[in-house]
C-alpha cells in the first residue's frame, strides 16, 4: 500500500471558532492506482491534499491520525525530511495555474529551479552551466511529453503569454519531471475549458500508465472521476462516507449522500429527472452530532443523530451508514 490515511482529524482555528475540517478521514491508495476523492465544498477534500503534503496554513492543526506513505508516517517526519518527500516523491498540481506560476519569471527559470533543486542527477553536476544545460534539455523533453508545441520557445515565455491549459500542462510537466511516486491533482482541471480539460486528462492518463504512477484525483466532478479513476472515495463534511470500486459506487451507490449526488446530476448521456438534496452542507464550526448527513438524509433514524456510523462492507464497497449495519 503506497498511501494509507487513517482517522485523520484536522482543525482550523478561525475567529468564528474551531472549524472541524476533517473528522476522521481514512482511505488507501495502492501503487499504480488512481483514486478519486469526490465531494462538494466543505467536504474536506482539499484539506486532505494539503494535509498529506503537510502544507496546511498556520491556523490549522493535524490533531490526530496517521498518513503512512510507503511505510513512513509523514506526520512524524521533521520538516527537513518532509521537504525531501514533497515534490520528489509526492507532487501536487493545484486548481489555478495562474497562482502557481510566478508571473515575473520566465517559465524556464521556474522549471529549471525545480529540477536544479530536486533532481538528484542534476544536483550532482558540479558545473553550474552544465547543470543548467542538462536541466533545460530535460525540461524540453517533459514539455514534449505533455504535448506542448514548440517547447524551447515556451520555456522562454512568461506565464501571462500562455493560456490556462498550457500553464496547467507546464505544471503537470514540472510535477512529473521529478518522477514522483504519487501525484495529487487537486481540482487540476476544474478551471479549464471542457475541450482543454479532455486534453489534459488524456495526457495525465498516458503519463500515469507510462510510469505506473499512483494518482489521487480530487474533484467535485463525478464525470471526471468516472472516466479516470479505478476507485472513488466520496467525502462529506470531513469524512469519507463511501469508498469502493468506481463501477460499484457510481452505478449502485450505497450511501444516501452518494445516491443523492448522482440523482442531482444533470446528464448529457440520458434524460433525467433531477432531484436536489434538501438542506445545505453543514457548518463545520458546529457540526451535527452523529452522522453529519443526518439532517438531509431521507432515511435518518435516531441512532444516526447520536452516533457516528462505523464503516461496514457492503457488496464490495465500504460505507459509513447505519442502513448497512453497524448498529
Amino acid at each position, binding site marked *: 500500500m503506497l498511501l494509507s490515511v487513517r482517522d485523520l482529524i484536522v482543525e482550523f482555528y478561525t475567529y468564528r471558532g474551531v472549524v472541524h475540517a476533517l473528522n476522521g478521514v481514512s482511505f488507501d491508495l495502492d501503487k499504480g492506482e488512481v483514486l478519486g476523492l469526490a465531494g*462538494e*465544498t466543505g467536504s474536506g477534500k482539499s484539506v486532505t491534499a494539503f494535509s498529506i503534503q503537510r502544507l496546511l496554513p498556520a491556523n490549522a492543526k493535524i490533531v490526530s491520525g496517521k498518513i503512512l506513505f510507503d511505510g513512513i508516517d509523514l506526520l512524524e517526519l521533521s520538516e527537513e525530511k518532509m521537504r525531501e518527500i514533497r515534490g520528489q516523491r509526492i507532487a501536487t498540481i493545484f486548481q489555478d495555474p495562474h497562482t502557481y506560476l510566478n508571473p515575473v519569471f520566465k517559465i524556464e527559470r521556474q522549471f529549471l529551479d525545480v529540477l536544479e533543486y530536486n533532481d538528484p542527477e542534476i544536483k550532482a553536476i558540479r558545473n553550474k552551466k552544465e547543470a543548467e544545460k542538462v536541466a533545460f534539455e530535460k525540461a524540453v523533453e517533459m514539455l514534449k511529453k505533455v504535448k506542448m508545441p514548440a517547447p524551447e520557445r515556451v520555456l522562454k515565455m512568461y506565464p501571462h503569454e500562455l*493560456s490556462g*491549459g*498550457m500553464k496547467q500542462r507546464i505544471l503537470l510537466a514540472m510535477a512529473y519531471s521529478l518522477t514522483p511516486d504519487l501525484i495529487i491533482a487537486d481540482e487540476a482541471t476544474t478551471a479549464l*475549458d*471542457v*475541450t*482543454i*480539460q*479532455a*486534453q489534459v*486528462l*488524456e495526457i495525465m492518463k498516458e503519463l500515469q500508465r507510462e510510469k505506473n504512477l499512483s494518482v489521487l484525483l480530487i474533484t*467535485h*466532478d*463525478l*464525470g*471526471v*472521476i*468516472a*472516466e479516470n479513476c479505478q476507485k472513488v472515495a466520496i467525502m462529506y463534511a470531513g469524512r469519507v462516507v463511501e469508498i469502493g470500486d*468506481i*463501477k460499484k459506487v*457510481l*452505478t449502485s451507490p450505497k450511501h444516501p449522500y452518494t445516491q*443523492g*449526488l*448522482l*440523482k*442531482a*446530476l*444533470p*446528464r*448529457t*448521456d440520458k434524460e*433525467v429527472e*433531477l*432531484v*436536489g*438534496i434538501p438542506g*445545505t*452542507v453543514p457548518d463545520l464550526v458546529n457540526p451535527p452530532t452523529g452522522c453529519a448527513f443526518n439532517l438531509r438524509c431521507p432515511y435518518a433514524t435516531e441512532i444516526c443523530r447520536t452516533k457516528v456510523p462505523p464503516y461496514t462492507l457492503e457488496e464490495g464497497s465500504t460505507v459509513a451508514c447505519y442502513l448497512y449495519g453497524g448498529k
Partner: protein
Amino acid sequence: MVTEIIKIENLTKHFPILGGILQKTVGYVYAVNDVTMSVREGETHGLVGESGSGKTTVGRIIVKLTNPTSGKIIFEGEDVTRVKGEALRNYRRKVQMVFQDPYASMNPRMTVKSALLEVMNIHSMHKGSEYEYATKLMERVGMSEEHLYRYPHELSGGQRQRVVIARALSVEPKFIVLDEPTASLDVSVQAQVLDLLKELQKQYSYSYLLITHNLAIIKYISHRTTVMYRGVWVETAPTQELFKNPQHPYTIALMSAVPVPDPTLKREKIILKGEPPNPIEKVVACPFQDRCPYVMDICREKMPPNTDLGSEHLVRCWLRA
C-alpha cells in the same frame, strides 16, 4: 404560432484595444461576429460555448451593459438596438439578467428587503404594498419572509441565487438572460435552482437565454440550443436534435469531451488539438479551421454558409454545405 420574443440579427462586437502613450487603438478583440439567433416566447434557448466563444458578450449586449458594434436587437417586434432614456428603462423592465456569482452580484451591505424594495421604488411599482410583494417574491423562489431580513453573507449559496432570481423577477420581466446561473453552486443545490427556473417558466411563461459551458444543464432545461465558437455561431437546433445528431465538428468534439459519470460507458473521445482561440485575431473564413480534424482548403478561404438541415437544425460547416 409561437412568437419570437427576442431576435438578434448579425450582432457584432469588437472591443478596441488601446495602447501606447496616446491610447490609440492598436487592435480589436473580436468578441462577437455576425451572430443571428432568436428566443421563442415561453422557451429556453441555450447558448453554449467555451471561453472566447463570445456567449457572455452576447448576453451583456442583450441586457445593454454594452452596445454592439453593428447588428440589431429586436424585442417584441421593435428595434431596441439604440434605445435610451425612458425607452431603455422600459426595456430593462422586460429584460433582466441573472449573473453567475450570486454573492458578487448583490450589494453585501444591503438586506434582501432593501434590495427588493429599491427596485420597486425605482420603477414606482406596488406603491404601498412593497413589503407584501417582496414577501410574495420570496415565496415564489422557495424562500420565506424571514429571509428578507438577512444579509447576503448570512445566506447559503443556493439561497443567494434564489434571491438574485427574485430580484430579477421583481420588475415582472418577460425575458431573462441567465449567465452561468449555477456555476458557483454545489451540485446538490444546482438541481434545486434548475428546477425552480423550470417551474417558474411553466407558471409564468418566462423566456430564458441560458448562457453556459455546461452541456448537461443545457440538455436539462433548454428547448433549443446554439453553439458558439470564437464569436461565431456554428450550429443551432432543438436541444434533443442537437444531442442526437450533432453535425458541426466542434459540437461533436465538445459533446465528446464532457465527462460522463457512468464508468460503464465506453466511448471514443475526440481530443481536439491546439488551444482555444485568441479573440485578438480576426476571424477569416471558418473560425474552427485550426483545430478541426476535417479541415479542408475551402474552410480557410471562405466562411461556411448557413446550411438548413431540416427540423430547424442549422449548421455552418463546409462539410455539410
